[in-house]
């Protein structure tokens, strides 16, 4: 590499200061933007202590969050584990916001700070800004203001209605949080900034329109019941509805306005995190690939010393370690490892394709510009589609993947596919499916309710492969659901293949619980 003015080692030794951070950031930016062509939100890097990192863990990484005992529980848990020395803390946390906030720990060495800036402030940041899921479902500009609003609103509700009432509501809402997301795009883009204004305006309107006289006007008695067809009734309630929190917010008969607003807040937050759950492999793969390229680039240019580079390689290899299935440390597929391996594999296919690659990936094999291909992939795929499209036979062989079926009906486990010609597609399909949260999360929908009748809420779970819901949890969640709904709730587990009713759970609303 030809050294130009201002080059030389960014730092020596392991100590860092803010000047070094700035210098390292600039060097990283040169490579990230110039060479890799990343397109990122403006960055904000915040240096925090270990204790603050534990705080951040407890509030799902967000800088501010409303108060709830469950966050205290997570804090206590992480603290105990950390104190026992069982767990090191993450080197960084990055938040999908604009500006993109990355927390880095003060304990990190200068090399580690360089690594985490490359990883979080450029890798993750690029992914957040460009991936279609994040564009579709999250509002990076508005999220921090919205969380501030949520925190204030919930605190105000606690003052007005008592901590116990709010806690009960949050417990119930949290239990249903994973079923509080829209899975299919809607007409309106999320716009969290207008949320606060909307709530205020509605409140003001209620106050202005309030007139006590209306209470005294005699009613005409019940209006003649328009008998609706079942279909029409369901259509009016937007049924079937898989976003249970949305359904409750709009249709639960007995909730107060503030309770609906809190359900809405929880729903928005769940929606904000929804893309992250679908892109673990890609997101981490993208960040890991970027930091690897950037740090290697820095070393090639002579900006970091051999010692620093070795330190980087050591933690890099730790991160992308994938124990084999018979290793005592095996704990599932490591998303960092899989993501990084696939990104590198795509780079290989672009640069030096084999005949097999040409056959499997005709549109990218030998294209030469691997960064353009990767950037395109990072923008337009999620884990499931990414694996289904780009897991190559080469990688399946390298990892020696096999497909094992565990059917309780059979006395033994069966190997269904291995890394051979017959197995590639099956393994790829199955691995993609394991990363599809549409498949891994149970499919639960509000099926029907007769608001004019007994108001019993009917919820369906369509059972796949006989995997029923966790019995104890379902009883508790259903109780929460019944409390929110205010009337009885019945959950039917129906086998999706045969249509047969497998199991039924019921819950009764506790009187005056809310």
């Amino acid at each position, binding site marked *: 590499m030809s050294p130009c003015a201002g080059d030389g080692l960014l730092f020596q030794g392991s100590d860092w200061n803010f000047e070094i951070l700035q210098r390292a950031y600039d060097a990283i930016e040169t490579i990230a933007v110039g060479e890799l062509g990343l397109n990122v939100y403006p960055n904000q890097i915040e240096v925090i202590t270990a204790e603050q990192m534990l705080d951040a863990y407890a509030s799902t990484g967000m800088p501010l969050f409303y*108060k709830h005992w469950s966050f205290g529980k997570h804090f206590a848990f992480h603290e105990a584990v950390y104190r026992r020395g069982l767990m090191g803390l993450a080197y960084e946390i990055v938040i999908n916001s604009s500006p993109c906030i990355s927390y880095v720990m003060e304990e990190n060495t200068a090399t580690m700070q360089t690594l985490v800036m490359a990883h979080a402030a450029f890798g993750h940041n690029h992914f957040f800004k460009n991936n279609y899921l994040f564009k579709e479902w999250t509002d990076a500009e508005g999220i921090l203001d919205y969380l501030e609003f949520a925190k204030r609103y919930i605190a105000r509700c606690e003052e007005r209605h008592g901590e116990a009432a709010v806690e009960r509501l949050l417990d119930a809402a949290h239990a249903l949080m994973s*079923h509080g997301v829209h899975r299919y795009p809607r007409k309106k883009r999320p716009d969290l900034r207008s949320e606060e204004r909307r709530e205020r305006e509605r409140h003001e309107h209620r106050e202005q329109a309030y007139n006590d006289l209306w209470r005294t006007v005699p009613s005409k008695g019940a209006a003649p019941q328009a008998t609706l067809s079942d279909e029409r009734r369901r259509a009016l309630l937007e049924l079937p509805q898989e976003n249970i929190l949305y359904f409750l917010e709009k249709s639960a008969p007995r909730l107060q306005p503030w309770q609906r607003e809190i359900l809405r807040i929880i729903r928005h937050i769940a929606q904000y995190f929804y893309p992250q759950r679908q892109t673990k492999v890609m997101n981490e793969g993208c960040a890991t690939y970027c930091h690897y390229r950037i740090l290697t680039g820095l070393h090639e240019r002579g900006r970091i010393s051999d010692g620093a580079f070795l330190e980087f390689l050591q933690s890099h290899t730790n991160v992308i370690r994938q124990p084999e299935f018979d290793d005592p440390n095996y704990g599932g597929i490591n998303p960092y490892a899989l993501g990084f391996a696939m990104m590198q594999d795509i780079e290989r296919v672009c640069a030096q394709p084999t005949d097999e690659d040409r056959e499997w990936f005709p549109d990218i094999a030998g294209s030469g510009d691997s960064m353009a291909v990767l950037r395109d992939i990072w923008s337009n795929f999620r884990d499931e589609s990414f694996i289904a499209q780009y897991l190559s036979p080469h990688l399946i062989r390298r990892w020696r*993947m*096999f497909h094992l079926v565990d059917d309780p009906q059979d006395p*033994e486990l069966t190997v269904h596919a291995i890394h051979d010609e017959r197995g590639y597609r099956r393994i790829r399909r199955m691995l993609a499916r394991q990363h599809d949260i549409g498949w891994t999360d149970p499919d639960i929908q509000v099926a029907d309710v007769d608001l004019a009748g007994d108001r019993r809420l009917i919820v369906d779970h369509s059972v796949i492969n006989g*995997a*029923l819901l966790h019995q104890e949890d379902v009883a*508790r969640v259903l109780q929460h659901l019944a409390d929110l709904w205010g009337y009885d709730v019945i959950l039917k587990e129906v086998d999706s293949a045969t249509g047969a009713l497998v199991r039924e759970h019921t819950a009764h609303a506790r009187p005056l619980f809310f």
Partner: protein
Amino acid sequence: MNIIDRRLNPGGKSLSNRQRFLRRAKALVQRAVREGSGERSIGDLERSGEVSIPAEGVREPRLRRSTAAGAHDHILPGNKRFIEGDTIERDSDGSGGGSAPGGDEEGQDDFRFVLSREEFLELFLEDLELPELAKRRLATIETHGFRRAGYSTTGSPMNLAVLRTMRNALSRRIAMRRPKGSDFLPLAQEIELLEGQGEPSDRLTSLKEELARLQQRSRRVPYIDPLDLRYRRLVPVPRPIAQAVMFCLMDVSGSMTEHMKDLAKRFFMLLYVFLTRRYQHVEIVFIRHTHQAKEVDEETFFRSPETGGTVVSSALREMQRIVAERYSPEDWNIYAAQASDGDNAPNDNNACSVLLKDSILPICQYFAYLEVGAEEGRAPAGFLGSRTTLWQTYEPLRDQGAIAMRRVTHRREIYPVFRELFRRGGVEKEATSR
């Protein structure tokens, strides 16, 4: 790009969430703390500790599939010898069994976390309280402290409330229209300008008059007037005595085994921890006795062996002497705990009874008698024949509610007995319940 140093931000952001969690899991944590305290040595009580509570109680349920039922597909890396169609035995170590990711009961594990020392003691000693016994005279003896109580117009300069004074001065100056510095400035400038031109004019004269008027007004209305002064007012408030002395009396004659001493020690330690929570300053006096009593330090008290007969009254006399010498009942809250295996010289019982009743109990806030028994030879409680001589001596006093008595034979009974003795408003109850 911004780099922000957040390290100096106030910590403890999770504190209120943590408190909510503790409140939520209070019953569970309390049980864990109390059960855990049986295992840990009493010396560790003061330290913080890890507790584990059943995760069931603080579970956050979700709608999720049970991993027990239904068929599961796994994609695993690292195939070494399998080919398509192979079967693997279940639950075999290593090959197939390791593949099942987590059992169904992952949520059933205990939830472990660390309580701080404060949190631990708070829960440990909750709803215990120091009994208010007959010595009302002592309870009314109080010292005086001072407490802020608003402002007054007089006081010593030391207590001047500057902010309040300046606020008063400011509002008075505004009300009296005292001219400000900014009022003088344009006048002075204009005068200077006109004087520079050299020729006297009406304008100049009127300006000078105006300036003189303002200056006079400014002199008349002072910047700070004695009227403005405010002082912090402190009123004396009675404070209960915040110091206590704890007498540990123990029989160390040959009949006391190590086991019994251990029991006694545990009880004394608990009492000490409890007293330090309630009083700023607690002193301990160790008195051990055989046929004669001696004040000793802690190490000697628990460790060094001694032989001899048993005369309990000697210890009581020694305590009486020390109180008279060093701990005036006017200034000290006096607590005493006596541990013994119940033996006493037959001719001494009467002396004990009289001494206790006339001299010791009137000056004590609380007197507890703990009878420690050998682990194996447990006599059924309430069985008349099992009563030791000392127990029989003290029994009449207990019936008057003046002394708390318990018998303990096993380590695990210490804490329940202790709780029973100090339960809020529980002393009368226990006297009747037995």
